[in-house]
């Protein structure tokens, strides 16, 4: 019998990475000031090696200090959120699960806002306070939502989880709005937290995102087999010998960690974690060994493009990035909900 490889093949990695890279270059060159491709390469190449950039190139500082970090942050955030969405959809065997539909992102936003409003910081790492609070709140939110869902409906049906997620999001958003009302000068405007924005991103943000993605995202990818078992059924996972409680807890920690970091940097960007794994699943199938790596690239590509649209559509006005992702995501959400309900009622 031919051994069939289950994971992502090398050429698939190259293909996905290639597309992601092309979109990356496109997003760096297009914007309020468009820079030719040749110049982009020269700017990046020369600054990496410390060679002075030729005078003929118009605006290297826009590329280097504004657009490049922003596009990198968009790619990393998109990859992270999509990975989280894929992991949660597997863990809860629910194709509509995602940080934004479950209310985890809102929870993280609340945590971050509280940290900023009340000046909660970590000694020596000033911005870490916000991030840790966002992670903790994301984790607590996940626990609260799942506990409520279990109490109401032991089978954790799609409808119950989504309903509780929506209610929880509204509840948390109201507290968030209250905090912002009392500390308007410190906390960023509410649209940042509900719609997200990557406009102020810098290279430090990118580094933190990369670090989080390697640690937490790595943890998720290494549990692809367990996620497969969960996606087939939690009871079945228990029967074949998966340490169900431990894996569930680990995945929830990884997901909260990633969402917390993403939200504290870019606000809560909705629906990307829902949309990407869903589209990717149509190409790779539901096996997480393929789905998760493909979601990383797919999410990066999707969010870079969404950010591009947010930047250039109404130039010089800028849209919050969540406007773009939620617009696409909400339509797709209805479609998934509709088709999956039709399937169960058939």
């Amino acid at each position, binding site marked *: *019998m031919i*051994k*069939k490889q*289950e994971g992502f093949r090398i050429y698939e990695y190259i293909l996905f990475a290639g597309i992601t890279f092309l979109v990356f270059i496109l997003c760096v060159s297009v914007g309020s000031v468009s820079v030719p491709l040749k110049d982009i390469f020269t700017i990046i190449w020369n600054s990496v090696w410390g060679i002075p950039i030729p005078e003929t190139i118009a605006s290297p500082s826009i590329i280097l200090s504004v657009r490049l970090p922003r596009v990198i942050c968009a790619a990393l955030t998109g990859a992270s959120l999509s990975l989280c969405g894929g992991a949660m959809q597997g863990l809860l*065997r*629910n*194709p509509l699960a995602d940080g934004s539909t479950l209310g985890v992102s809102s929870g993280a936003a609340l945590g971050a806002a509280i940290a900023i409003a009340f000046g909660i910081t970590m000694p020596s790492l000033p911005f870490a306070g916000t991030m840790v609070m966002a992670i903790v709140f994301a984790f607590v939110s996940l626990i609260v939502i799942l506990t409520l869902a279990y109490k109401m409906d032991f089978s954790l049906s799609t409808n119950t989880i989504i309903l509780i997620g929506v209610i929880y999001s509204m509840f948390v958003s109201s507290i968030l709005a209250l905090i912002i009302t009392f500390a308007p000068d410190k906390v960023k405007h509410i649209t940042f937290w509900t719609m997200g924005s990557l406009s102020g991103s810098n290279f430090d943000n990118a580094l933190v995102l990369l670090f989080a993605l390697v640690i937490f995202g790595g943890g998720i990818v*290494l*549990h692809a*087999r367990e996620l*497969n*078992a969960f*996606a*087939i*059924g939690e*009871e*079945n996972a*228990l*029967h*074949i*010998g*998966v*340490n*169900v409680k431990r894996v569930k807890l680990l995945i929830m920690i990884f997901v909260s960690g990633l969402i917390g970091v993403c939200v504290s940097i870019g606000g809560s960007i909705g629906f990307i974690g829902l949309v990407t794994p869903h589209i990717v*699943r149509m190409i790779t*199938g*539901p*096996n997480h060994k393929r789905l998760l790596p493909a979601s990383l690239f797919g999410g990066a590509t999707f969010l870079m493009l969404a950010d591009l649209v947010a930047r250039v559509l109404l130039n010089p006005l800028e849209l919050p990035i969540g406007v773009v992702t939620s617009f696409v995501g909400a339509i797709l959400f209805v479609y998934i909900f509709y088709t999956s309900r039709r*399937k169960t009622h058939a």
Partner: protein
Amino acid sequence: MLEVKNLKVRYGNLTIVDDVSFSINEGQWLMIVGPNGAGKSTIIRAVSQGAPYTGEVFLYDKKIEEYKPYERARIIGVLAQSNYVNYPFTVREVIRLGRYAYAPGIFSRQSEEDERYISEAIEMTGLGSLLNKSVLTLSGGELQRVFLAQLFAQNPRILLLDEPTNHLDLLYQKQVFALIQDWLKTPGRAVVSVVHDLSLARAYGRQALLLDKGKIKALGDIDEVLNPKNLDMVYSMDVYAWMRSKLEQWR
């Protein structure tokens, strides 16, 4: 092999399983029978660690909680009443997961032995032509065979079956039970199954446990347990007369 002592399962203040004790040895096929709501499936769920319980469960004289989940899965395999899958996994992917217990680590890879057990399981269940099909496209009977193949690939020594053919056609019922009967021929194996069809229980079982409202009414050889007195009491009707009258229709 398996010993259950004073098993008690409660949901809130409702006692589902009340003080049930039994044991099973190599080569035995124990049928758990009884009316609806007697707690049959709950026993399986508790023993497979899927429901909280009090009392003790021993596997080879060692408490079941002392086994790691993957160690337990190498000894006990479970076939649930029905499996409903949400995503289009292929038949092969589902069967392959049966080998999880033999490579539970994050970096472990599939071995030659895994491949052999998977091929064997596929052959036994006759799923060769369906391997690359999505499980969403299968009929209930085919899906149940896929999970049976997963169970065979897992290669446990004790099978716990919870009404494995509940929703299946007669043909599939016969196929599944015949497969399990074959599986049991290898020494060192045993089966515990919940069955509500008394004729099926009698056709394949050797031992039986008759359950009523969570309590054991009778336990022992199946012919002794399923005697008229016991059955009439538990089912509140003349079971023998009913079974015979049903059989008459086919003469």
